[in-house]
């Protein structure tokens, strides 16, 4: 299940967020939402999972059927 982990430091108000469980550039949509509310981050890095390609399983349909 995808999740976002927010870490807030109440001493400074600094915020970190970590998007987990979304392989590939799909997590850019989440990052876009975060940037819409938070602005450009001071630091941004893709983690290993970002570079995984989502698996697409081919679907076979019988000819002539729906």
């Amino acid at each position, binding site marked *: *299940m*995808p*999740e*976002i*982990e*927010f*870490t*807030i*430091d*109440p*001493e*400074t*108000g*600094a*915020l*970190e*967020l*970590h*998007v*987990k*469980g*979304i*392989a*590939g550039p799909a*997590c*850019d949509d*989440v*990052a876009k*939402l*975060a*940037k*819409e*509310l*938070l*602005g*450009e*981050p*001071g*630091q*941004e*890095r*893709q*983690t*290993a*999972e*970002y570079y995984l390609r989502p698996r697409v399983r081919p679907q076979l349909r019988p000819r002539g059927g729906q």
Partner: protein
Amino acid sequence: MSKYLVYPELVFKDRRLLLAALADLGYAEVEEGEALPLYGYQGDRRSETAELVVRRRYLGSASNDLGFARSSGGFVPIISEYDQRVLHGGHLLAQLRTAYSERVVEAVTRRLHGTARRSVEGSLVKITVRF
């Protein structure tokens, strides 16, 4: 793991969330407009202007107006050195950033139709949003 964003210097990007964060800190009365003048504690007009202003009567008897000027990156606080030192025990901006961050988490949770789980680890607040 897929993406990691760090906001050491949080900007107040969203006007609505900034207003909510100010209300959380007890400043619900905020004047809004274009290039509003800011006044000092003696009623003197200052050179700066802002788009969001908490007037000094809502801050303290020796306070100056607290402003937020719109910039391309978001709203930038305009606060006097005195108020920065005195308001909320000198932690006004840190507390405002924290309140803003909490509002951001709320907004993201709502937008993603997710559920949030909160925990405290040492001095840090961790909120995990599943969607």
